[in-house]
């Protein structure tokens, strides 16, 4: 072969190989890329219904498990509270089951700190203490009306000296007390946002704190765009533009503690409108005149200066309140956090009563707008569970702390709550707790309270244990939640209530059941027998299974007791409650109002050890993994600080330093600090992250209900040394350029 033909041939060979390269593989390539989940076939897994216990709202959830591992938590579609949805905290709970820092063994505090003891010994120690305590003990939980609370209450409830305390969320007690305004029993007010056209949110951060952000989210969605032709409109009044306020159509920065005044002023205008438009209400016309007389002090022109806004804005609230009926007024944390909380709540409730009257007159009222059906049934469920439904609230906490100080208790059981961390410094819980000889902490993780306890019992995660719950927050229908183990315990834990039962049995106390599971079954049986009457087609066993399948029981129909329409005379009795006392503040000499608030992710601090929640950007600040203090840019400028500069916030009770996050949506005289940061002993992720705002708070209480007035605090703010890079998701310049999306 000569050179020339060789070259020719090799050239042909080269191009032929190129052709060959692309000819064969087509089908395979397509099939390959069409398996974008990398060939993994979707596994169905098993779905179990249970109840989310991350907070006390009692949302029904379903949990997907594959090969005995919980994979995903979703809302239970038939559950009346969650309505098929779940919040961030609930879904992040799978992370806590498999958290590397979970407690795995009972630990007794000895001379050299905690020592691991076996479960048998733990039961021995507790039973011995039970015997010694002779009923002089307290049980402190997170305010859930659940099985363990019921068990403890049934064992010790009748003993003299026993105290059952629920360390419930701040503001809860006031809400309950305010809700009691019209009904004759404590209850949470339940304004029907779903069907409202116009809503005024009085400091109600319903998506962040409030009971069940999930339920409120659904209600908001329904209100806003649930109907074809109507767009629900919301107005938020409060000192900080929270993420709830962010979705509202108008934000009114009302000074702290003045929301009751605003509500009354709106009511005054509403009554005037009713009179001037001659709306036919059940309230006699002359009675309306009397109301007008009562409310005349709250004429917008008179209170506008106090509310620091033009009087026209009050009219802007009141006119649609009548025109766009049905309307609701919702009170929340900014109302209940002050010493005049209950008074303000009453004012808000009065608005709701007026709204009901207007709505009915306009034939727009929905049966669920304001009533609280089946209050009796709910109470009966509580009683059947054996829980002390009055245990919750700050009043009991004060009683407990006093008792501990006086040495009343030789023993205490603290279950799934962290009062050392989340009660205000003014309460001095930690000091009091140290005076109790023997404290048992039932917990999943080591936290500040467990560290102070004598004995730490690792409890099952709520995905692993049995319980039954009567949620605090009942939107319209009575609910009995069932919590079942959806996975086998991942680490060597025991149900806290099982241990208590075992110890009580060993101490020869009367126990309601041998185990929690048995207790739950018994309660369901009792419930079926007492509350429902026994449906013939379901035996006890089947009924229990039915509940397991559904995740609990709730009346499928709204079983209305007729809504009490207060006759004028009753309403007239109410007139004394319509007042707007001046708010009082702890540290009133200080220049700034402190506005502690819950974020959607941290809760009261439970979420702080969860990587997902820490990394999820806060809705308003978009900060991740970080603690901050919000203040108005004008305030920051006055203090001479920019974003990331540290400031020291101090009150008589303590001080914290935090990086500044200037935020336009806050009053210039308010500094807002998130709750849930600043753990000192809560695992690697949470410890040392920020500071605990609770250390600033005094022990001011609501004058009417005795609830903790957690926003009645004024503080000093001064520039401190240091700077911190703010780990924000939004760019500090870009966050003002939303117009590029032409939304």
């Amino acid at each position, binding site marked *: 072969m000569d050179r020339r033909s060789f070259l020719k041939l090799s050239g042909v060979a080269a191009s032929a190989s190129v052709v060959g390269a692309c000819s064969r593989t087509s089908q395979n390539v397509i099939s390959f*890329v069409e398996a*974008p*989940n*990398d060939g*993994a*076939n*979707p596994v169905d897994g098993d779905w179990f219904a249970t109840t989310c216990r991350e907070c006390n709202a009692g949302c029904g959830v379903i949990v997907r498990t594959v*090969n005995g591992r*919980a*994979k995903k938590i*979703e*809302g239970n579609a038939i559950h009346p509270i969650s309505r098929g*949805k*779940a919040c*961030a905290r609930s*879904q992040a709970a799978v*992370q806590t*089951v*498999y958290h*590397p820092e979970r407690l795995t063994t009972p630990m007794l505090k000895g001379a050299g700190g905690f020592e691991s003891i076996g479960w048998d010994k733990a039961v021995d120690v507790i039973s011995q203490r039970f015997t010694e305590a002779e009923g002089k003990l307290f049980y402190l939980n997170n305010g859930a009306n659940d099985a363990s609370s019921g068990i403890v209450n049934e064992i010790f409830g009748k003993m003299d000296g026993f105290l059952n305390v629920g360390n419930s969320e701040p503001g809860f007690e006031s809400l309950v007390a305010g809700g009691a305004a019209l009904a004759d029993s404590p209850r949470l007010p339940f304004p029907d946002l779903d069907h409202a056209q116009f809503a005024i949110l009085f400091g109600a951060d319903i*998506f962040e704190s409030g009971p069940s*952000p999930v*339920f*409120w*989210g*659904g209600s*908001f*969605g*329904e209100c*806003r*765009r649930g109907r074809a032709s109507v*767009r629900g409109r919301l107005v938020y009044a409060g000192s900080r*533009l929270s*993420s*709830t306020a*962010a*979705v509202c*159509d*108008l*934000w009114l920065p009302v000074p702290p503690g003045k929301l009751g005044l605003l509500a009354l002023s709106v009511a005054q205008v509403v009554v005037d409108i009713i009179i001037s438009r001659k709306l036919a209400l059940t309230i006699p016309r002359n009675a309306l005149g009397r109301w007008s007389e009562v409310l005349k002090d709250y004429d917008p022109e008179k209170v506008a200066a106090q509310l620091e806004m033009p009087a026209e804005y009050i009219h802007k609230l009141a006119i*649609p309140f009548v025109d766009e009926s049905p309307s609701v007024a919702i009170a929340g944390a900014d109302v209940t956090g002050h010493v005049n909380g209950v008074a303000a709540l009453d004012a808000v409730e009065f608005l709701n009563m007026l709204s009901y009257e207007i709505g009915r007159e306009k034939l727009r009222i929905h049966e669920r707008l304001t009533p609280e059906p089946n209050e009796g049934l709910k109470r009966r469920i509580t009683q059947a569970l054996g829980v002390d439904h009055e245990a919750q609230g700050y009043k009991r906490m004060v009683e407990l702390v006093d008792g501990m100080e006086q040495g009343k208790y030789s023993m205490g059981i603290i279950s799934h709550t962290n009062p050392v961390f989340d009660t205000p410094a003014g309460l001095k819980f930690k000091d009091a707790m140290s005076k109790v000889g023997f404290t048992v902490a039932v917990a999943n993780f080591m936290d500040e309270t467990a560290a102070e306890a004598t004995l730490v019992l690792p409890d099952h995660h709520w995905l692993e244990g049995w319980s039954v719950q009567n949620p605090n927050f009942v939107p319209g229908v009575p609910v009995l939640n069932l919590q079942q183990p959806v996975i086998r315990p*991942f680490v060597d834990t025991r149900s806290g209530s099982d241990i208590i039962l075992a110890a009580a049995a060993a101490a020869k106390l009367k126990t309601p059941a041998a185990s929690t599971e048995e207790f739950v079954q018994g309660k369901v049986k009792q419930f079926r027998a007492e509350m429902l009457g026994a449906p013939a087609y379901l035996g006890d066993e089947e009924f229990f299974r039915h509940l397991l399948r559904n995740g609990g029981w709730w009346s499928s129909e709204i079983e209305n007791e007729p809504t009490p329409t207060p006759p004028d005379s009753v309403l007239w009795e109410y007139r004394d409650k319509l007042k707007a006392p001046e708010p009082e503040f702890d540290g009133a000499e200080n220049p700034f109002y402190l506005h502690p608030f819950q974020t959607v992710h941290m809760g009261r601090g439970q979420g702080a050890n969860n990587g997902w*929640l*820490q*990394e*999820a*950007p806060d*809705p308003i600040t978009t900060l991740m993994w970080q603690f901050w203090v919000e203040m108005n*840019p*004008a305030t920051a400028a006055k203090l001479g600080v920019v974003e990331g500069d540290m400031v020291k916030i101090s009150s008589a009770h303590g001080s914290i330093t935090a990086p500044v996050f200037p935020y*336009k*949506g806050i009053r*210039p005289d308010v500094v807002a600090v998130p709750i849930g940061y600043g753990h000192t002993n809560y695992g690697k992720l949470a410890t040392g992250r920020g500071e605990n705002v609770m250390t600033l708070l005094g022990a001011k209480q609501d004058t009417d209900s005795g609830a903790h007035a957690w926003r009645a605090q004024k503080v000093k703010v001064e520039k401190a040394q240091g700077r911190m890079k703010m*780990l924000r998701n*939004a760019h500090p310049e870009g966050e*003002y350029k*939303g117009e590029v*999306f*032409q*939304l």
Partner: protein
Amino acid sequence: MRTLKESIKVKSFNYKKHNDYSWSMIIDLDRCNGCGACVIGCQAENNVATVGEEEVGKKRNMHWLRIERYIEGEYPHVKVRFLPMMCQHCAQAPCESVCPVYATYHNPEGLNVQVYNRCIGTRFCGNNCPYSVRYFNWFDSSFPEPVNNQLNPDVSVRERGVMEKCSLCMQRIRRGKDTAKDEGREVQDGDIQPACAQTCPTGAITFGNINDHESKVYKMAHSGRAISLFEEKGTHPAVKYLKGGTNDVIG
């Protein structure tokens, strides 16, 4: 095999004509309250890694779905807007054509698909995405024992050096289609719910087949409020948004 002529004729817009399914997602901005449940839902469903404080500081968080927050106005007339942002699954996706290895392409059901094990990490797609919704694995994602027990078996854990992004819960779509096939029927509206749509408490997110003219998404996409983000770029996203109301209805 198609002839060359046929193959030249195939254009992106034919998805809607030639396939049973064309998946679409509608996000009602009037409903979104920024609560972040979808973010965690997505994270749990798709094995999205957490990156830790240090990396977050460098803006390397991996959330496939993020909620953008914009602030408008001056105190006291401040308005905060939330905008859930995930892969928009553009019909004319800028990210797809620039990938040198076909690691991202458009599947016949109108989804923008990322094939992790083809990806070599040139990050060109990320540069060409106007929405900035593609995320890069800067390090090996850390799911140390025992956290790995949570991992969803349907979704792979991505190696370092590859791009990842929202798949509109591809595995759920497939499961939905499998179930429908087992039951011998078409996929019904509402059968398939991506994790975010499933969990959104306010019901702001709706998912469905836009080829089905009876479906919710079809009706919503044809309502007057529907917009596409960066419409002027001509990307034709499968994710559409419903505009919010006016700023100040009362004023």
